[in-house]
């Protein structure tokens, strides 16, 4: 007989089982992935949903950008391919930014799971592809058409048979077809693994009843945490470097009883550059900020996030119209985190941190000694201070991206890292100092010129301090000593030197007159 009611003990046991299955599938996926972003930055998620697309368990290692995105993808896909038409061996696919995870580089696949010939769940996987065609990812791209191949809602496989036409299309439109297709089929394998692992559990318990109980408990936990925050409307803001002019992020956080809503009205309008943030992505980082500040122990599933809503008017940078480009959506979207922290600092000063900077990167492509290469190097920055401690020097936040080892970078592209050191003194002063950013200097040493595309964060807009703490130093980008624009693609000749500096974090509290010894 299958279990349909759960006490605080059996629920804990079955829930852990579910999470460990999802984590196992996600570990196998990460190890086989060709995408640097999947491996070094956990830029992927594996999810189990019920037949309605409500999430039951999500991989623990995934970065915050996927909170709530895959359940929405499942719902969009089943709207096109109704549940009763699906059969074992089917796999659905899309990379529509509005239905997926916010830019076309993230491809999602969803596999129906059957038990005793009944569809009982979906396994969903989304991940950043090694390549999706188009121009190299850069904030300067102006429309989605430049960014690469768009995959609408389609069937990747029917009853176990891959769609040859679709695969042929993908193959022709990306730079490294074996790697992109390798990752898409690794997603399918992860979905299958999840189905296999789930089977014994399905014999023991009623998954619908279990998932309802998980959602109920998680939702109650989040509501309890919100109720502890005083009711009110709290305002916060942040700023992105922008292009011709800065992009403003403004949020109003409304706490009312056990509900919390965040409205981005007043933020800049969408821009013809690749930094627009679709609503689902705005929600993901907003929900992350709320969870990190209020209750970081609460599990990752749909129930936890029911009491949280986000909104922005159509045409806003947080709710752009098609065909807005969004390849660099994280640059603006992640700024919702410090904006929300600033808003909540008025009532929860001991829980928040001052602004820091998210990651920057440089992508190099070209030919060297007769062979094509493509290499990406990630750089983190200084983070903001808190009420009782200095900010972290050189740590990834709010995403979670490892740096690229010098030795690996030099193996994969004809460059020499001249200097990779802490940019001492770049953190903002204050009662507690912001963390320091990075000084990164490379020299091109290949036998022919190569193309460089940089993503820079906080090179104009300094990360702000809180409660009188001073801002951190903004970053900088230089080619042979001259400041250059990261929205352009640059050609590097042998001997050219690029310096990338990342920002320091903001300080917390007014600096005391006597210098505090570290």
């Amino acid at each position, binding site marked *: 007989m299958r279990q349909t009611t759960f006490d605080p003990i059996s629920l*804990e046991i079955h829930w852990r089982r579910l999470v460990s299955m999802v984590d196992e599938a996600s570990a196998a996926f990460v190890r086989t992935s060709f995408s640097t972003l999947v491996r070094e930055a956990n830029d992927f998620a594996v999810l189990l949903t019920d037949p309605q697309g409500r999430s039951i368990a999500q991989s623990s290692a995934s970065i915050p950008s996927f909170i709530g995105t895959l359940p929405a993808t499942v719902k969009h896909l089943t709207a096109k391919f109704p549940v009763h038409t699906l059969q074992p061996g089917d796999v659905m696919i899309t990379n529509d930014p509005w239905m997926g995870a916010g830019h076309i580089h993230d491809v999602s696949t969803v596999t129906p799971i059957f038990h005793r010939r009944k569809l009982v769940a979906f396994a969903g996987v989304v991940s950043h592809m090694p390549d999706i065609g188009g121009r190299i990812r850069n904030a300067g791209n102006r429309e989605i058409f430049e960014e690469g191949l768009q995959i609408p809602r389609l069937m990747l496989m029917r009853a176990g048979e891959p769609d040859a036409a679709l695969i042929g299309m993908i193959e022709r439109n990306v730079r490294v077809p074996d790697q992109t297709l390798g990752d898409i089929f690794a997603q399918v394998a992860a979905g299958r693994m999840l189905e296999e692992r789930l089977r014994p559990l399905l014999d023991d318990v009623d998954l619908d009843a279990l998932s309802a109980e998980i959602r109920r408990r998680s939702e109650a936990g989040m509501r309890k945490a919100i109720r502890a925050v005083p009711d009110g409307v709290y305002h916060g803001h942040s700023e992105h470097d922008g292009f011709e002019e800065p992009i403003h992020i403004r949020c109003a956080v409304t706490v009312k009883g056990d509900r919390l809503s965040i409205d981005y009205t007043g933020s800049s309008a969408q821009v013809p550059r690749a930094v627009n943030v679709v609503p689902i992505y705005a929600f993901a980082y907003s929900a992350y900020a709320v969870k990190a500040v209020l209750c970081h122990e609460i599990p990752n599933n749909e129930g936890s996030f029911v009491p949280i809503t986000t909104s922005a008017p159509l045409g806003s940078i947080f709710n752009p119209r098609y065909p807005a480009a969004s390849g660099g959506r994280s640059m603006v979207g992640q700024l919702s985190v410090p904006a929300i922290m600033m808003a909540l600092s008025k009532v929860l000063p001991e829980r928040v941190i001052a602004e820091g900077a998210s990651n920057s990167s440089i992508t190099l492509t070209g030919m060297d000694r007769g062979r094509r290469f493509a290499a990406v190097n990630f750089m983190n920055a200084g983070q903001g201070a808190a009420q009782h401690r200095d900010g972290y*020097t050189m740590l990834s*936040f709010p995403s979670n991206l490892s*740096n690229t080892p010098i030795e690996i970078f030099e193996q994969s592209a004809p460059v020499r890292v001249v200097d990779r*050191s802490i940019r001492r003194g770049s953190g903002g002063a204050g009662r507690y100092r912001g963390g320091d950013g990075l000084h990164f200097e490379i020299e091109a040493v290949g036998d022919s010129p190569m193309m460089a595309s940089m993503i820079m964060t906080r090179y104009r807009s300094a990360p702000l301090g809180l409660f009188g703490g001073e801002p951190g130093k903004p970053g900088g980008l230089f080619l042979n000593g001259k400041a250059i624009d990261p929205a352009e693609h640059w050609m590097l000749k042998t001997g050219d030197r690029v310096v990338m500096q990342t920002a320091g974090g903001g300080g917390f509290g007014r600096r005391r007159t006597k210098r505090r010894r570290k």
Partner: protein
Amino acid sequence: MRIAVDIGGTFTDGIAVVSPGDRIWVGKTLTTPHAPGEAVTTVTADLLRQVAAARATRPEVDEVVHGTTLVTNTLIERKGARTGLIVTKGARDVLAMGREWRYDMYDLNLEIPRALVPDERIIEVEERLDARGGVVQRLEAAAIRRMLDKLAALQVEAVAVCLLHAYVNDAHERQIEAAIRKRFPQLAISVSSGVAREIREYERMSTSVCNAYVQPLTADYLGNLGERVRELAPRAKLRIMLSSGGFTSGQAAAENPVLLLESGPAGGVLSALNAARNNGIHEVLAFDMGGTTAKACVAVGGEPLIAHSFECSRVSRFKRGSGLPVLIPSIDLIEIGAGGGSIAHINDLGLLNVGPESSGAVPGPACYGLGGTDATVTDADLALGYLNAENFLGGTMALRTDLADAALGRLAKKLKMSVPSVAWGIVGIVNGNMTAAARVHIAEKGHDPRNFTMVATGGAGPLHAVDVARNLRIPRVLAPIAAGAGSCLGLLAAPARVDRSWSSPALVSETDWPAVARSVATLREDAEAELASAGARQTGLKWFIGAEMRYAGQGHNVSVTLPATKITAAFAPQLVREFERRYKQLYGSLVPGAHPQVMTWRLTGRSDIVNRRFQWGDQRAGGASSARGRRSIYLPLEKKFRAVPVHDRYSLKRGTRIAGPLILEERESTLVVAVDARVNVLDDHSVLIEIREFE
């Protein structure tokens, strides 16, 4: 005669084995943290007395094999040497920056592990190699002089050297090493290309620094130990157990002490495998559970899997990434739980949780009566009847059932449940957690648990093994003898072993095979010398070539191991076949059109593994009547308490066959069989439990 001594946190255990016959004597004394050698002397002297009394002569000791947690503890407590670090110009902050990711994504205030060498003790030196090992900037004599002057001012006791791309060309590191040895002959020195010749500067640097940091202390300790051993047994050679599951000479261990990090736990696994081999069991999940930790390890074909990176000195025990990385070969053990001391509590969502907090030895579980008030796994075991309050540690420590019930009662009240259901809840959850972690571990290695036998060791291992095995659908559990001193038996069953590695990333199709062959030959010569110093005979040696492989473009490796053979281009298809076999086993299918690549090569040499059929030296086995009566225990499948037979384990004769549910008691542990099962006492006094449900 050979002697094994293992220094643990609380006890120092020793076993003497006399051949032929592999008869064993066991000794135990409290660990002496201020001077660990003292406990070694005490135990060794005690063992010599026992053997002499039994045989009326004083037998000669040939070898003392030693396992220790000294290196681990030095790193955890940060009590190592004042250490300096020499790096390539431009790379001075590699250690401070680490890999820059957060081991907990949602904790805004996580603690970052502090580097072992602070900024002011890092010296940059002007030199540079490229990724192929070519010299971009020469290391000039003047640069070496400046470096030495700075080093002189630092007043360090140890120094690590880690230069960029030294995994492919070690010339500059060796030049610096020679210069330092000449000017500061007393300084401990650790060179990255010697300690961990692998790509990725942070991990290699961290390994070299950890090694330097523990070198002076370990050298003193091993020197002192050598003297003590010579006093008691003048002809005995000192051998040291490594994390890899082999032993080496005292001298080699003193040079690379970082290889000793997991020396104790490795012994536990080897002991489990020895018992498995004796009974013809080839697919094993070694399960070891003690008071503060539970570990699991997969071993197929009698040999444990080896992992090549490890993390020590974590600031958050169960969080990967919160420690210092070290690139050393170690038996691939995973920590699956916090052991019998794990504390039960109610979380934010109103659910019962167990661990990761542990009550430790003091105050310990509530039932110890030492002031602990939190309900732990041990308290639950007692309330369920699995532990005997009067016979804990052979009756030397009485357990307080009333205190256990009171602690459980507090949780029961909050959860509005009965005490027995909360007690079973705690055991069910902790077993469930260990099951989940072990299941993932087995699956990650590409195996099916239904073919496995679990081998249970540690004080709490036999208590929980059968239920965890049942959850994993593992049909058989083997409980070897002397669970309490298990790692010593492992030390005695271990082979001599040497591992060497070097990173040389290249596609298989473009590999320079003569260069690989040359590297193998050089390293083999060096490895042979070390094996000889560890007493291994040339003729009985086994050699293996390993490769860390992937499809070009991926970031994770699949480990491939083949018996050593002549390396020519003809080796390529063999290597690719083995890679594809492993890849399929792990991930289901290959990647069409992708190119196999080798990142790191490995060479392993070890002496032959000999099965040891250990028997009690004293006549404790096979005594009088075994039945000790009956006790009421909780049977999870029936969801109720029932009286079951209790036996004295070592009174059961070989070949005994009885049926579970039942309890077997021994001095240091209790074997709980709470389901229908066949229980067989085997020839070596191991007990095999076959769960009926899976027949």
